[in-house]
Structure formats: C-alpha cells, structure tokens
C-alpha cells in the first residue's frame, strides 16, 4: 500500500474507532448494539496498520486488487451491522406490542376498579 494512502487510512480508521468508543463511553450507544460497529473499527484499524494482511487476504480469496478486498471487508461489516439492527428492532417491535397490550389491559382494570 502506498505510504500516503496508508497514513490516511490509519487516521480515518483511528478517528472512526475513537468516535465509536466515545459514543459508547458517553452512553449514547448501547454496547450490545454497538459491538458490531466496534468490531468493524478494530478490523479497519488492523488492516490499515498491517496492510500485508490485506494482501494476504486478497491472495487467499483470489482477488487481484487488494483495494477490492478492502471494499469487501467494509461491505461485510455493513451487512453485519444492518442485520443485527434488524434483529434488534424485530425484538423491540414484539416488546412494544406486548407493552401496549398490557398497558391497555391495565387501563381497563383501573377504569373498572
């Protein structure tokens, strides 16, 4: 990897990861749902510091240009994040329905007591 590109990549990954760590430490993101974000930040940081890993991964996957491997890794991380979010909000939808029904039943009891 070209040195300038590598420096940009390292800086961008570091900024990205520290922003995520900052958000978690401030309690703005729940750790449970930001694990995937954190994981993606660590992956980018590792790849930017050790670009040889990217080359090795490219050879392993028979991808000619390492930059395509990088895109692949990023896309993989994005898919993982969106998937976990869908799982999370499906759960929440169920919970909201249950809570709303429970509240309606309680309101009814209160009204009749």
């Amino acid at each position, binding site marked *: 990897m070209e040195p300038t590109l590598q420096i940009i990549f390292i800086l961008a990954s570091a900024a990205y990861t520290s922003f995520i760590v900052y958000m978690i430490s401030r309690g703005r993101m729940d750790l449970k749902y930001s694990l995937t974000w954190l994981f993606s930040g660590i992956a980018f940081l590792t790849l930017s510091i050790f670009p040889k890993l990217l080359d090795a991964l490219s050879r392993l996957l028979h991808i000619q240009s390492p930059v395509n491997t990088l895109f692949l890794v990023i896309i993989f991380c994005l898919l993982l994040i969106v998937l976990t979010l869908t799982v999370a909000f499906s759960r929440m*939808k169920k919970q*909201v*329905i249950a809570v*709303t*029904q429970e*509240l*309606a*039943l309680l*309101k*009814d009891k209160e009204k009749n007591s």
Partner: protein
Amino acid sequence: MDKVLVIIPCYNEEKNIARVVDGIRTLGGDLDILVVNDSSTDNSLEIIDSLGVKYLDLSCNLGIGGAVQAGFKYARENGYRYAVQLDGDGQHDPFYIRRMKEQIDSGFNFVVGSRFIANQGFQSTQFRRLGIRYFCRLISLLTGNKVTDATSGYRMADRSVIELFAREYPYDYPEPETLVTLLRSRYRIKEIPVVMNRRAEGRSSISAPRSIYYVVKVTLAMLFCYYRSERVT
C-alpha cells in the same frame, strides 16, 4: 364462563362502530362486547366510551393483529371460553355468532365465517376473490385441509385457541397464516356459511398497491408457519 366475548378491532370507525355495537346488543345477554380502539385518530374513542361497552384503548397503533391479540389476552385473563372476532366496519352480521358457538360446543376449536359456501351477499371484487382462492389452494397444499374463505376476519375461537393466540399472533394480515398454524397443529376448524355486507362507510385497509405486498408477505408467512410447525410436531 358461558359468555361469548365479541372482539371488535376499531381503527377510525367513528361512522360505523355505534351501529355495529347496537347490532350485537339486539342479540341478547350472553354476548360481552369488547371494542379494541387501535389508537384511532378520529372520534372513535369518545363514541366507544359513550356506548358503555367494555373497551381497550391501545396507546400505539398496533395494526389489526396486535389489536385483536389484545382482545384474546383479555379473553384469557377473564376466563372466556368463546371469543369471536368481528370487524368494526359492519361487514360482519353478528347474527351468526350463535351458530358459531354451536359449532364450538359440538367440539370444534375454531369456526370461520365463510362467504363462499352459500355464495350469497357481498362477494368482494374479482381480483380479491382470485387472491382468496390462491390462499385456499396454498392452505390445502400445505395442510391437506379444504378452506373456502382464507381471509375471513369473522372467526370464533375456543379456550385452547384463545390461549394460543394470546401467546402468539401475527401482527399484520393474520388470517391465512393462523389457519395454517391451527391446521398444522391439528386443531379442528369448521367453516360455516355467512352473508357479509359491503362496508357501510370508509375504505378497506388493503389498497391496490399494497395487495402485491400482501400476497407476497402472507405467502411467505404461511410457508414459514408450515416449516416451523413441522419442526414442532
């Protein structure tokens, strides 16, 4: 308890709900009416309150499935052995509730009011009938049972089905999907002929562009139900 709980999901039915409730009241005392107001944005809640019936007021709009399930939870908690679901728009004639109850008493777990046995009254549009026939075919393919009106929302449950639905109920377009679940789990289902009316006021909840989504979603839901129930049994 020998009473029947009549669950009426209500979303923006200010023009219809009073008439529907009155229609049920003329039938006599063993019917308990429970209107479930699904966060209507019109005057439905005030009207329901003034009618003096039991009602549940949902604070968020849950859609038909969540509203009806709230009714089943009410039925479970209050010990009802019969719960019938009846639309709040006046399509369903409460006259048939007695007949449904007789079927439950003779040993069926679930009774569905079908437009397509006697083929009288409002038969829906040709396009929808095509969709309904398709769902019926799919149900018979998946379960081996014959159903004529897979999307009918006029249905009565016995105690065992009330308990099942209170635990788990799909939150949108629940009708065909729950039929697959019930049939796969060997509940006894009976269809009786009913005459349905065209809705008096307002529009159906399923508009033309949504119908494609409806068919695809319900088909997938039925297949998943089939798959899930196979693993349970």
